[in-house]
């Protein structure tokens, strides 16, 4: 087990190096004078700024050396500074990330909350009405893109009715407006985001569970006189959820980087809309910083998934 944790940590570090290096190349490999690439079109272009950039990015050093010093700064939390707003990248992330995190977490939570019962029910009633109808509904959820769902929800909840008094756009912060006001603004975008992962989660859980329910140990649990509900929850769910945990991890990563559109539709000041903004303005440093951050989160989540495996399946711990 200790050896395994060691392996995972080594792998984590290697992946992080690769990810950061690739993102770093973003500024290094753009054609033309790197200064031109780094400097956004709208930024002032006087000699002082150009010199500052040359010095700050060590543009006269070889690539690897530049990566080294960039990385050294990055680990201390210095991802550079926007040449348009003069804002530190880490500052921007700190400001925007709570919204994106909350959306991601809430969407994954909604998805799991629905997917677990739907998946279990589908497997338990395999091939029957409950299975077929829930599969069909889930399929619809999967085939509609989140932004359509988002637009539909805005139309439904605000234009058509003011059900629950949910605001269609904007964001209330927990810190200033309290939890309830915050959730009121978060619930619709999070729900729109949750449909696709809900479909993936429930389909995966259902198919794994169908397999588990055919296992001998499920039959022996029945032969002990245990109740169906108990057997499903206590005996069948855990061995069926290994792939689910993987895909939850992957989906968290996808959600984290996939809130862009939804943030746009619901006018939420999250990390995604900041990234989009930076792309419009060709604010390379900002783009790079946010990308590194998201990629790092992605890798960290997947490592966490590996460790959750250990908790779920004692057989893996042995290896």
């Amino acid at each position, binding site marked *: 087990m200790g050896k395994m944790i060691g392996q995972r940590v080594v792998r984590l570090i290697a992946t992080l190096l690769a990810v950061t290096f690739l993102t770093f190349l973003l500024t290094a490999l753009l054609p033309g004078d790197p200064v031109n690439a780094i400097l956004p079109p709208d930024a002032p272009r006087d000699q002082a700024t150009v010199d500052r950039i040359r010095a700050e990015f060590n543009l006269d050093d070889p690539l690897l050396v530049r990566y080294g010093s960039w990385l050294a700064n990055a680990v201390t939390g210095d991802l550079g500074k926007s040449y348009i707003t003069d804002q530190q990248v880490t500052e921007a992330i700190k400001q925007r990330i709570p919204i994106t995190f909350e959306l991601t977490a809430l969407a994954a939570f909604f998805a799991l909350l629905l997917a677990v019962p739907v998946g279990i029910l589908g497997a338990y009633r395999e091939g029957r009405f409950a299975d077929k109808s829930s599969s069909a509904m889930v399929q619809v959820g999967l085939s509609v893109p989140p932004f359509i769902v988002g637009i539909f929800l805005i139309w439904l909840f605000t234009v058509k009715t003011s059900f629950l008094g949910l605001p269609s756009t904007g964001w209330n912060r927990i810190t200033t407006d309290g939890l309830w006001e915050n959730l009121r603004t978060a619930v619709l975008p999070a729900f729109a985001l949750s449909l696709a992962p809900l479909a993936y989660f429930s389909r995966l859980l259902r198919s794994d569970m169908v397999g588990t329910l055919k296992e001998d140990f499920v039959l022996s649990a029945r032969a002990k*006189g245990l109740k169906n509900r108990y057997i499903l929850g206590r005996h069948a769910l855990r061995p069926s959820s290994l792939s689910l945990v993987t895909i939850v991890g992957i989906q968290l990563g996808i959600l984290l980087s996939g809130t862009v559109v939804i943030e746009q539709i619901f006018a939420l000041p999250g990390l995604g809309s900041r990234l989009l903004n930076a792309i419009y303005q060709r604010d390379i440093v900002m783009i790079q910083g946010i990308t590194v951050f998201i990629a790092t989160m992605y890798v960290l989540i997947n490592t966490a998934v590996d460790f959750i495996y250990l908790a779920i399946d004692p057989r893996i711990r042995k290896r």
Partner: protein
Amino acid sequence: MESRGTVGRVDRKILVVEDLKTHFKLPAGMVKAVDGVSFDLKQGQTLGVVGESGSGKTVLSRTIMRLTLGNNVHTSGRVSFEDRDILSLSNKEMQKIWGLEMAMVFQDPMTSLNPVVKIGRQVTEHVRKHLNVSKSEAKATALQLLKGVRIPEAEARFNAYPHQLSGGMRQRVSIAIALACGPKILFADEPTTALDVTVQHQILNLLNLQQQERHMAMILVTHDLGVVAGRTNDIAVMYAGKIVEKAPTWMLFSRVQHPYTEALLRSIPRTNQKNHTRLSAIAGRPPDLINPPQGCKFSPRCPYAQDKCREEEPTLQAAQSDEHQFACWYPVGTPENKEAFEKNLAAQLPQTLAFAEGKVVDESVIDNAVALSGGGS
């Protein structure tokens, strides 16, 4: 002559099975996995169900226990367990019987224990449900059980996962689970087939000991007549979903009537031979259960088969004693049987030739089996 375990005791019938049929509907037709089985079992008695792979032993025991076999099953006949009509009970009602009054030990302890649930929980969960005891009481019971099935360091094993135990230990755990609520009848479906030869005897002895101590009824399913020799009161031999011979164990071994039983006897592994090879395997394959052969289903493989066998299916009839029943036109040991054999030999019937080539039944195997089953002389 007394049967084992019934001395000075009048036991009532705990299980009555009448004309039980379990058919599976497949696109290709009906699989008649169990096709008209009848027997009864008294309290404290052990019945051995013997037959080749595919003869319907597992389907039979699962049908009696009313465990689901799929939704293409058609079951008919009657199973009466302590005067309750098992086949008409709801699943809810069965849940009160399963684990409490009827229990099962499965073939493969590698798959019948949940790999992600600790041993302790698996031994106690149904005890808590059925006997309505507290967690600590259940644990105390479980530890006692684990010690009872000779699991060393039961306390430590309680918190172990199945993969941390050897196959034999896991089967002991399965037995402890099955015995936990003190069932009235125990089904053991090839409980040792998946285990090492050396462990097999220990597990079988353990089952026997527990069965006798608890005066519990037991159905021991196996494909190996050698396994049931010293361990059962009665034996039912199954072929293609039917019982073809049924008798008290000692009687079956000493007065074999059915050619299939004879063939099974010839295939008991010789324990005096190191590699445990079979004396002779039975020629041919078990029949197709969707389109079984006409007449006697064993006829394509039987060394004594005559025209009559291929036309008309024999039904169970009594031998010298009512306790001994068999379904065969030319029972082993009769002059008619001898005549049929010679006729087939002359006609060079392949299965008869194969049978003749296989060594003659090793008398010591039979003597040994008879001695073990406590009957004979």
